[in-house]
């Protein structure tokens, strides 16, 4: 998927990322040849349902997968290849140049240390500055993520904060070493609507100020529309469509994207039967041949199940993995 040729190396570039889980009687390709690149200051949302491989992709980038997972492909962070780094160097990168926020801040924050101590610890480890100076930076960070009376909150334990505050504290922790890439794994899913929008706005604003690239993973079309520059729709381990947020929301090309949007409920649909995608996501261990979406696709034709699905790339850089998008109308199927 070629982007506009960047003057400096992209913040994050991923080529053909594949993750396989191998155990005794299990061999599953959770992520199957994902490629994208992301400039500084840009937000890519990976939109997909559970089991689509969106979270696994993020964990693979952070090297957080269990040891029976095999990761292949190429990952460049600020022009440096990540996956063949020695473990020690990779560990330094984590929480440094690339960091991650999670759905459950309670699980990501250590309950026995104060918020301030945790942020300071990260800074000390990565930058080797004194604890006093690190504490000062921690205070600045809490101010930055708009935690009210930050000086007091610095001395709080995670359980003493409300859900939204905890999420802010986790963002502060992730930003501690000014990462060039922030990975966000469903950070707003567990939050109330009024808090969710606050966190989305905060991330947008922080990005403007700090210029990091964000990979935002979610199943929520609404959150994706609020935060993304580009959206990649993921299904059964593959990107099936990538385009700007506007294109995805207005003119979705892939039948799965269309189905996902039409089954996203809103008030305007009152009294009407929802257009759903029939069936349920496929078992990754027994993917159908050809297009993995074909069994659920209302446009599916013979050609969909017979071979690798061609990828079409528009001049704007939008990508679709569907035979219907191929500009040769020979196989066009009546809707």
């Amino acid at each position, binding site marked *: 998927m070629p982007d506009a040729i960047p003057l400096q190396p992209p913040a994050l570039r991923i080529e053909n990322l594949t993750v396989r889980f191998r155990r005794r009687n299990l061999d599953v390709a959770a992520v199957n040849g994902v490629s994208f690149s992301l400039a500084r200051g840009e937000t890519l949302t990976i939109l997909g*349902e559970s089991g689509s491989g969106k979270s696994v992709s993020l964990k693979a980038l952070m090297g957080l997968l269990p040891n029976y997972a095999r990761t292949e492909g190429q990952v460049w962070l600020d022009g440096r290849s990540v996956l063949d780094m020695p473990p020690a160097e990779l560990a330094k990168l984590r929480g440094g140049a690339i960091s991650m926020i999670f759905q459950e801040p309670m699980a990501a924050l250590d309950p026995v240390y104060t918020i301030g101590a945790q942020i300071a610890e990260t800074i000390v480890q990565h930058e080797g500055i004194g604890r006093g100076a690190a504490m000062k930076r921690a205070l600045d960070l809490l101010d930055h993520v708009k935690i009210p009376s930050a000086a007091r909150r610095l001395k709080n334990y995670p359980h003493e904060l409300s859900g939204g505050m905890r999420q802010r504290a986790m963002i502060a922790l992730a930003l501690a070493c000014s990462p060039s890439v922030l990975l966000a794994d469903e950070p707003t899913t567990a939050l109330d609507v009024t808090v969710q929008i606050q966190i989305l706005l905060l991330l947008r604003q922080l990005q403007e100020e700090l210029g990091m690239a964000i990979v935002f993973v979610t199943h929520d079309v609404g959150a994706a529309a*609020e935060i993304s520059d580009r959206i990649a729709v993921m299904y059964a381990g593959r990107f099936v469509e990538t385009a700007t947020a506007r294109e995805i*929301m207005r003119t979705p090309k892939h039948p799965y994207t269309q189905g996902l949007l039409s089954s996203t409920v809103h*008030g305007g649909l009152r009294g009407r039967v929802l257009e759903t995608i029939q069936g349920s996501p496929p078992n990754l261990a027994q993917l159908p041949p050809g297009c993995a979406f074909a069994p659920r696709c209302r446009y599916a034709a013979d050609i969909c199940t017979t071979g690798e699905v061609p990828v079409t790339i528009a001049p704007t850089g939008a990508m679709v993995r569907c035979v219907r998008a191929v500009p040769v109308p020979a196989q066009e199927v009546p809707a």
Partner: protein
Amino acid sequence: MSAFTTSDPRDRGGPAQPLLTVEGLRKHFPVRGGLLNRQVATVQAVDDVSFSVRKGETLGIVGESGCGKSTTARLLMRLIEPDAGDVVFDGDPVGDRHGITVNAMRRQMQMVFQDSYSSLNPRMTMAESIAYAPRMHGVSARESLSRAEDLLAQVGLNPRQYARRYPHELSGGQRQRVNIARALALEPRLVILDEAVSALDKSIEAQVLNLLSELKARFNLTYLFISHDLNVVEYVSDRVLVMYLGRVVETGPVESIYARPRHPYTRALFASKPTLDPDRRTTEMPLTGDPPNPINPPSGCRFRTRCSFAQAVCAELVPPLAAPLDGQDDGGAHLVACHVPAAQEAMALHA
């Protein structure tokens, strides 16, 4: 949607009588602590909640975590005992000498929970789980099992394939279908759906919502639909109840509530909804901070601490649920709990 269609032999008061009327429902949970396990505080989970559900309608209850919507559901099912309040089911006071017993009410009122996995016994097959309640009520094993298979088919699961499966062998959407079948096994008239679609993937959620509206028509059901998802509530409900920190702040027909919200909280809630349009993104926060702790909530109007219209009176008096001060109350159906006419006016204009 709200039309009461066929006659049900169990119907007593006729279509005009509400199926469920709740009056002054209250539950305060003690918070114990300290050396002698004394009560140190109170969580005012549900405080003076009143509403009614009409026959054949879907009443949506919407609110954020800690607003008391799930506690309300559990109080109605009597899974927890209310501190105060009267529940009247189709004219019969529940648990009253002159009314019906809690168990009799439970046969006509069932509930679907959010967590599709934990609400099924992991050691029972799907058919056993569905057949369980009728079995306990004296239906023979064979008949209850064959009815369970029929219900599986009704919720779109092939009984030949799923009747003898265990919960962990099904996907979330399939399990939730089983939970719906289980709730229908006693042939209830009212089904409480407590965040029943919230944990499902969007494509599955839409399928289950379609199923719910099919079943509603087929079995003549009335729904109490509890959710934090404003879009889903708008889609399914005929009337909506908005709750904040254990109290009802606004209620009315769905069109009226969503088009002209009068309460500052309702308006902020709706404004927090993602826009689904990358060109018209939300630019300012409708509210700051999290909902306050329901332990020791603010006096008077509970929203006043986050409300930009708050005045002195808001701290002193609990605002009663009353017709909007602008006089446009949709025939008495739209009620709002707010002291400040300016706030209501501004809200209505804003929206």
